[in-house]
């Protein structure tokens, strides 16, 4: 689905977190929102999902204003994975993923819902863990469970807040590959991410946020040293290695 963000602003009481943000994402795009801590990345993601109410501007999904979509309908279009799940220990993996079917369940989950979940568990290689509780899983497995839970909503748009924070490089790659695969299947994927190398490698679009404003956006051509140096206030060297962009900090 095509998302158009038009001049949105948002403040937490006195503090203006987002100022005049505009950008567009198309079906099948994978957008990385990058910037320093506190630059407004997570806030932007929450505004796009109406978790936070924007003060100004508008967001459109396939030309339709976000404000005209009911909360129940929105949960069938857009799925959100928070950065850290608030402690929820004893639920089984199957039940957690089944939670994502809520927009389609009234009362009791149907046979179709259960089959849908079980197929997702297979797809994300979680079938062995189906009856384990979340708190017994590793970080990488947990993240896959949450992605499965989001996919259970059958969304066209997937929003993920720091999906690979706290994961080792093996699980980072696994999650990023999965997200790219999903975007190739036509889901619009939007993530916030700190690892700019991973962002450059996997996401075809980038949005650079500096103190609540868009500083640069576009395709991979935005990964030039001048942009990144301004974004993070450090000196970097951007090199190309086997068609991949590598960003390395210069002097220590």
């Amino acid at each position, binding site marked *: 689905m095509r998302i158009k963000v038009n001049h949105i602003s948002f403040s937490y009481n006195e503090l203006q977190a987002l100022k005049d943000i505009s950008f567009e994402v198309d079906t099948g795009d994978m957008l990385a929102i990058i910037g320093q801590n506190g630059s407004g990345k997570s806030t932007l993601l*929450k505004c796009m999902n109406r*978790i936070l109410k924007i003060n100004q501007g508008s967001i459109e999904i396939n030309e339709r204003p976000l404000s005209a979509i009911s*909360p129940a309908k929105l*949960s069938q279009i857009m799925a*959100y994975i928070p950065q850290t799940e*608030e402690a929820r220990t004893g639920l089984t993996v199957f039940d957690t993923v089944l939670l994502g079917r809520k927009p389609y369940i009234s009362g009791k989950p149907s046979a179709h819902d259960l089959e849908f979940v*079980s197929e997702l568990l297979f797809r994300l290689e979680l079938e062995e863990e*189906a009856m384990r509780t979340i708190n017994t899983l590793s970080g990488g497995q947990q993240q896959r469970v949450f992605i499965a839970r989001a996919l259970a909503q059958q969304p066209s748009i997937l929003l993920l807040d720091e999906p690979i924070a706290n994961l080792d490089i093996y699980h980072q790659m696994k999650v990023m590959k999965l997200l790219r695969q999903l975007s190739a299947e036509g889901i619009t994927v939007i993530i916030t991410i700190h690892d700019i190398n991973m962002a450059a490698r996997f996401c075809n679009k980038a949005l650079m946020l500096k103190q609540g404003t868009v500083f640069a956006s576009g395709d991979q051509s935005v990964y030039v040293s001048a942009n990144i140096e301004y974004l993070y206030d450090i000196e970097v060297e951007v090199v190309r290695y086997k068609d991949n962009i590598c960003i390395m900090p210069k002097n220590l």
Partner: protein
Amino acid sequence: MNDEVLIQYKRYRARNKRFIIFILLLLVLIGGIALLAGSHWIGGKEILALLRRDGTALEYQILLNIRLPRVLAAVITGIILSASGALMQILLRNPLASPYTLGISNAAAFGASFGIVFLGAGSSIARSSDLFMITNPYIVTVAAFLGSLLGLAIILMIVKVKQASVETIILSGVIINSLFGAGIAVMQYVADNVQLASIVFWTFGDLGRGDWYKLFFMLIVLIPALFYFSIKRWDYKVLCSGDDYAKSMGVNPQQTRILGLVITSLCTAVAVSFFGVIAFVGLVVPHIVRKCIGDNEEFLITGSAVFGGMFLLLCDTVARTIISPVILPVGILTSFLGVPLFLFLITRRKVRCE
């Protein structure tokens, strides 16, 4: 292999349902025993006589006007306290939450004390054998109910003024509890001996205060509440994964939480006003059920309700019969029976993990 996962999960759901049905059967069984047992044992011969309609009027009276209301009072109160406890723990995302977390118990006790001291409900001794007879139970009940509504109103005011987080709500509950605790102390200070004894007696919690009108009133409150909780069970499930996630799933966390708290508090207020403060059940029954069926809100509320009804009935039956004809306050038994059961469940799980 795909089917394997489905079969496992369906088995798990079936197991949870079987647990609930088993507890329900246990409840019926204990209910049957509770009707027969007591200081006047009603055996098979008497029941046959009753069925043939030639039983003595005494047995008829005991069954219909003493034992049956008491059994139903225990079951309904157990359901209210345990379901409310489970819901409070879900809504406030806190394992220490109970039906009394918002201060309902002290608020009701304050109301009852006020009724006893100032409205004359416990001021005179009706018979010389009953030193602490509450002479007008209806005034005490109404005063206790109004007290708990006052407590709830203060909480709601705080929530409204400040966009209240879960922490603020819990803290408000603690404050309300101590405020009304101080109020009770004042009442006890100004009360005379008989009134003081009445206040203490009231707070013990006693299921013998039930009659058919009270039971009817409780059901009027309980049935719509359970229906509402059942409709909302998926919202509660989502809410357990955090407010942001709930919003992204189309659930309004603030509204769901406040409405849930108000309904559970009203149910609890009714139970407390009628039967006094019965501790422990609302806090621990949801944990016992969690240990048995896991952390799934779909089954937790129903499971807690059924288990709570069974458990309070069991406690009350033991309290009535253990040193019959003396009837112990049921609140004492709930802790004495509940703590060993809970400890057993905690240690059993640990052994299995090792």
